[in-house]
């Protein structure tokens, strides 16, 4: 086996603990966590949608509910979960068609996913809740 030619050095990552993931790995586990969060709170979100459409009084009740700091926090978390899941998902669709699979591009787009979803959460959350 001496004539095996190593064409390209590929990155190795032996430490698979969550705190030591490379950036694309963090994006991946956050994609899973955000998806699970959205599923777990989908009933709550449907309840809010029903409230908003039921009647003008219920619409005002919803406004009242969303003025509570804890409700604002929960909506911000779910908004982030949606936006992160969306941005990371679009990135995965590009990876599926072999766009951005090189190490440098994969890391850059991971950073972009993290940053864009956080900034959008702040902007949209601000517009929606304040």
């Amino acid at each position, binding site marked *: 086996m001496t004539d095996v030619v190593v064409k390209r050095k590929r990155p190795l990552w032996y430490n698979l603990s969550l705190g030591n993931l490379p950036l694309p790995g963090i994006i991946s586990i956050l994609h*899973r966590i955000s998806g699970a969060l959205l599923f777990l709170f989908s*009933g709550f979100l*449907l309840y809010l949608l029903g409230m*908003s*459409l039921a009647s*003008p009084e219920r619409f*005002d009740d919803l406004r009242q509910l969303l003025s509570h700091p804890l409700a604002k926090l929960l909506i911000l978390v779910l908004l982030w979960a949606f936006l992160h899941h969306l941005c990371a998902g679009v990135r995965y669709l590009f990876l*599926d068609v072999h766009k951005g699979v090189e190490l440098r591009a994969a890391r850059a787009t991971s950073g972009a996913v993290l940053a864009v979803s956080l900034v959008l959460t702040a902007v949209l959350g601000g517009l929606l809740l304040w």
Partner: protein
Amino acid sequence: MVKRHVVGAHYGLGDWLMQRLSAVVMVAYTALFAVAIIAARPIDHEAWRGLFSQGWMRIATLVFFLSLFLHAWVGMRDILMDYIKPTALRLALELVVILALVGGAGWAIDILWRA
């Protein structure tokens, strides 16, 4: 005669494809929703309800919800397969997910067609 395959490959391909197709549908709906919201500003109850009482918006939202529930099923099943090793518990949780999603779909249709 039912042709049975006891073992074989690409059983997951349908799920994989469904996950992608439903994702694309939801991205398209999100863009449509954003445009509709911007066009309907300022959003009070009347404008909000008016948006959802239009036929095309109801159908688009229904297609979004159906994609969402298929997407959530594939995703939640993947999570359960990864972390829940006892078969009986996993099947029980999968059943809970299915019931929650079917119930949620019915609830979503009820909300949309009452608006």
